[in-house]
């Protein structure tokens, strides 16, 4: 009786192990541990990039996501959409298109009523080590990444004094969910020249070199599906004519299903293209597999 069981077990193991070793697994990440999508298309919060990798895949599969986000501000509308793929929870490749509608300000600045500043952001991120959820509570998940940004309305950027119309950001990000406190912590250091993310070009009269900027987030996990928190992001201030402020938001992200996450936030983007106090609502939907 035992012998038969052991043999059956052994046979099962012999069949199961090689199959499992080669099999590509679909999905399998814990809810929310793929993050949501930043306005630059990377996995993170809304404005800060995190060390998480996009897609629902684990180390044994391939996943991906698509997103649409809007930021409704007093004087502007910001929209971004894009897609990302996640390879083996190791590499993330992303693309986002940003559309920044200047509404009445466009006319006031002389670039045209409802003129839309557009930018493409191509991103790549590699998880170096660590696990945001498992392992030692003191060992975060750490990733490095690049974001290549191409401003499609370079003449506006040049007109406000930007030195370049394309730029590449480099960053290192660390993210950890502290299970014992249900607190999510993230910090990112970014080398960048971008003015307002790149929508106003790169570098300017007040500075044309890379500077180190900081992104941080603190969140609290209320349930498997629900996390609330805030983000802070420092930015360069390179343009004499258009002061730039740090960004700040308070967010709530909800995993409606394994494949759909909704995010809503109150965002304070400070002064943008000479118009101060741009505070409004950030809304984002992310589909992932």
């Amino acid at each position, binding site marked *: 009786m*035992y012998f038969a*069981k052991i043999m*059956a*077990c052994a046979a*099962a*193991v012999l069949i*199961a*192990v090689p199959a*499992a*070793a080669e099999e590509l*697994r679909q*999905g*399998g*990440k*814990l809810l929310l541990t793929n993050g949501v999508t930043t306005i630059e298309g990377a996995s993170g919060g809304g404005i800060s990039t995190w060390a998480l990798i996009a897609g629902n895949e*684990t*180390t*044994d*599969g391939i996943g991906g996501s698509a997103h649409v986000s809007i930021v409704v501000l007093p004087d502007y509308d910001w929209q971004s959409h894009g897609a990302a793929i996640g390879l083996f*929870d190791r590499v993330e490749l992303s693309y986002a298109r940003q559309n920044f509608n200047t509404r009445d300000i466009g006319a006031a600045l002389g670039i045209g009523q409802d003129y839309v500043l557009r930018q493409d952001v191509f991103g790549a991120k590699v998880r170096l080590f660590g*696990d945001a*959820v*498992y*392992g*030692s*509570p003191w060992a975060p998940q750490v990733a490095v990444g690049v974001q290549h940004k191409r401003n499609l309305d370079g003449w506006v950027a040049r007109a406000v004094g930007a030195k370049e119309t394309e730029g590449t950001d480099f960053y290192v990000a660390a993210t950890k969910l*502290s*299970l*014992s*406190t*249900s607190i999510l912590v993230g910090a990112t250091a970014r080398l960048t020249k971008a003015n307002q993310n790149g929508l106003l070009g790169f570098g300017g009269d007040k500075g044309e070199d890379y500077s180190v900027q900081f992104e941080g987030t603190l969140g609290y*996990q*209320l*349930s*498997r599906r629900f996390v609330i928190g805030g983000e802070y992001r420092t930015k360069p201030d390179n343009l004499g004519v258009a002061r730039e402020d740090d960004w700040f938001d308070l967010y709530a992200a909800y995993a409606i299903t394994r494949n759909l996450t909704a995010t809503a936030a109150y965002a304070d983007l400070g002064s943008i293209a000479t118009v101060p106090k741009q505070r409004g609502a950030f809304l984002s939907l992310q589909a992932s597999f």
Partner: protein
Amino acid sequence: MLLTALALFLQTAPSPGEEPVDPYEIKDSNAGATPFSGTGMLEAFGGKEGIRRIVDRFVDANLADEEIGEIFAGHDQVRLRRTLFEQFCYILNGGCRYTGRDMKSSHKDLGTQHADMNRLVENLQAAMATEGVPFAAQNRFLAKLAPMKRDVVER
């Protein structure tokens, strides 16, 4: 020498309804985590009775799971329910001893992947939620299990 062997054999002689396993040294540290202090966590889990219900639901869910059920098939369920109960009760400071094997040797050759671990965690979350364990306490318990992943998942 002979005495230690005999002691080991007696210690690991199968409990009623269980299949024998290779001899091993019984010690609480096999549980893979140190217990909480105080009674807060034990209460959050509904005491020993609550832990027993959670473990039963958890094991039932794992066995019935379409992703990971296969991994549990053919293994000694009676023993698994007993040792898991002991492990949870020990960690939650319920005054139990853990008499099972350590996590590394009991999971070796199972071929477990990351996705299996996540699935198991989700089944445990569901079992804890059904018992009414507050989410923050669920996470505090998972914090004790999270470092064990490296011993449980093969790659």
